[in-house]
């Protein structure tokens, strides 16, 4: 067995092993990304398959629509709720479990985590039914207020309509962050904590000096997860509110869906999807920059 044939065998194996995945990946993900960018800069007629170059026409149209700004605002609300709601609450829950402050920990952990394993569309429809006129929540509130016509004003308020949506998102995704934090907490060497306790350190001291520093890395990863996930979110809001009332709960993904697949304006839809991608990249870079700012001086 000479070296050359061994090396060429290796190369052939490499190619054969990588090629199938690479081809599927490039055709299904790579090509569409480029095509999407192209579509967004043209006026595309699906019946003739002709695309006429328009430059940034769709982008200017988008930025001039009040709908876009509403969708952007709501998308940012979802991002904020994820980063500043789900992550801290997830941490608190994990810490309670870690310090064994409650019993039935397995059960509680299971219940908090369960929602993210379910189909978001089905969960959305279920919650919709809960709030409908025959739903449990509506009937419960009507019983409590002793008013057979009681309706939840928040659901139709321009200012507050996102609150129930944010609440549902909080309920669904907090479990994910809880489990990740818990796993990382459990990796902290217990002897370090014990040693600190023997030294007479207070709970607060242990928390601030031992626990928090060990989690800074994972917080950054989770923040990126939360941002990317928030910008992708579609199923739950689509099933729960459909963006309504009016467009008070519309997010960018719904906005894109409507123009592309109910009004069949594929070019405009592509422009919206490009904005989503660019936003997600900018936000993730921003997180990295902030991370460097925060940790930088200490390292120096």
């Amino acid at each position, binding site marked *: 067995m000479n070296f050359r044939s061994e090396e060429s065998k290796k190369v052939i194996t490499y190619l054969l092993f990588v090629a199938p995945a690479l081809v599927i990946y490039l055709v299904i993900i790579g090509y569409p990304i480029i095509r999407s960018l192209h579509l967004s800069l043209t006026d595309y007629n*699906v*019946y*003739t*398959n002709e695309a006429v170059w328009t430059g940034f026409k769709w982008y200017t*149209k988008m930025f001039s629509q*009040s*709908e876009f700004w509403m969708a952007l605002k709501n998308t940012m609300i979802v991002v904020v709720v994820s980063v500043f709601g789900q992550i801290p609450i997830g941490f608190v829950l994990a810490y309670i479990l870690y310090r064994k402050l409650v019993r039935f920990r397995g059960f509680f952990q299971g219940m908090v985590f369960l929602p993210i394993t379910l189909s978001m569309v089905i969960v959305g429809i279920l919650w*919709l039914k809960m709030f*409908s*006129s*025959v739903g449990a929540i509506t009937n419960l509130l009507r019983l409590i207020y002793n008013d*057979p*016509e009681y*309706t939840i004003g928040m*659901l*139709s*308020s*321009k200012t507050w309509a996102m609150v129930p949506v944010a609440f549902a998102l909080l309920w669904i995704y907090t479990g994910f962050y809880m489990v990740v934090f818990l796993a990382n907490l459990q990796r902290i060497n217990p002897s370090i904590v014990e040693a600190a306790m023997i030294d007479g350190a207070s709970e607060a001291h242990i928390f601030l000096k031992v626990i928090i520093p060990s989690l800074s890395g994972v917080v950054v990863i989770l923040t990126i997860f939360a941002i990317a996930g928030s910008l992708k979110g579609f199923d739950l809001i689509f099933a729960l509110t*459909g963006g*309504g*009332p*009016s*467009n008070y709960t519309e997010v960018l993904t719904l906005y894109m869906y*409507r123009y592309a*697949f*109910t*009004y*069949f*304006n594929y070019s405009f839809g592509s422009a919206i999807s490009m904005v989503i991608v660019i936003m997600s990249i900018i936000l993730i870079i921003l997180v990295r920059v902030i991370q460097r700012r925060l940790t930088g001086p200490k390292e120096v």
Partner: protein
Amino acid sequence: MFRKTGVLLCVLAFSLVVFASCAGAVTIKWLHYFDITAPGAEVDLDIIQTFAQLNPDIKLEVETLYDDAYHQKLAALAAAGQLPDVMILWPAERTGKITRSGLIADLYPFLGDDIDNYVPAAVAPQLLGRLHELPMFSGTASHMLYVNTGLLDGLGLAMPQTYNELKAMVPAIRGAGLEAIAIPAKPTWVMQSCLLSAIVGRTAGDEWLMKAVKGEASFTDEGFVWALRIVEEMYATGLILESNVLLGYGDGPNVFAEDKAVFYIDGDWRVSAFSAVADGLMTPEEQEKITLTVLPDFAGQVGPSGSTSFVASTGLGMKAGLSQEKAEAAWKLVSFYVGPIASKKRLLGGSLKPPSWTNLDISDVEMGPMDRKLFDFYPLHPPTLILDAVIPADGVQRINTGLQELALGDITPEELAAEIEAAVASVR
């Protein structure tokens, strides 16, 4: 080429229905729009089967879809240059991109002198002045006021003759713990299609609307703003409760059938939700108490009295450029589907909208109380245009979402009118 000689093959495999037949068959591919879960679905299957038996030389390949899925598939097939031979089309903009593209045959040459057998409104010119589909029914009224006369009588109230009379009833109705008008306005198109369209037909009229679409008139004109003011007022006075903006489309009929509202606004297609024999929401006795009418007149309105918003119904259309043999077979199907046999079957099966085919003997058709009323509804109410049939998508989108804002008091009629004008102007 499949040759299944001597066997009448009738496979119902999932929702793909294939009706095959004897040798030498012409195959017709049919993309069918229809809700397989809807009450009365068997009737449609029966019509297809009857056609297959009467025309053993034509082999049908039927694919059935409904709602968004249908429109996506049709767009997909059109884009791929694989349009089916026969498909359900809409008279106006809903399938406008396809019918305007020249991919669909004009049916007038096929129709010839047979045109006299149809209700004139049904076979009136469609987009581009052509007839792209042969409508099944005389038409669709997108606005209908369902009245629960049982509740009305119980409150000692009479049918309102004017809009002001209707408004004056609110305190009495609300005092009795009931809703005045329920409308399942959660989907944004509902208020536009089932409410505002009919009001605009009265306050501004069709002539104005066509001018506004072309840019010869503006959506900020008084007639249109007035219509918006009426909608705003309906919510502000409690004639319609704000909570209706959250009432799901499937929830609406339940609210009305449960005697929680005296009036209900929806399209004529919702009659079957109440009256369908097997699983309708109302018993015949309950249906007796329901009157089908329209919003009463507004003082000083310019449009016709007692009008409703109306559009020609859907029907089958044919792909353009079929071979002679195929075109003949396809036309046989298209005309059979709305002809006397099929129309009669539909009536007997409980889908009781007046067919586009005239001179049909309906004396032996058993009708539920509400269906009889539906038959009587159309001659009494002159048609006006439905907004989304003539206004381009960007404008419709602003009207749809804007009406909910108006209902919730988040925008004024004048502001909304200006925004609608701007949205339509951007694509005129």
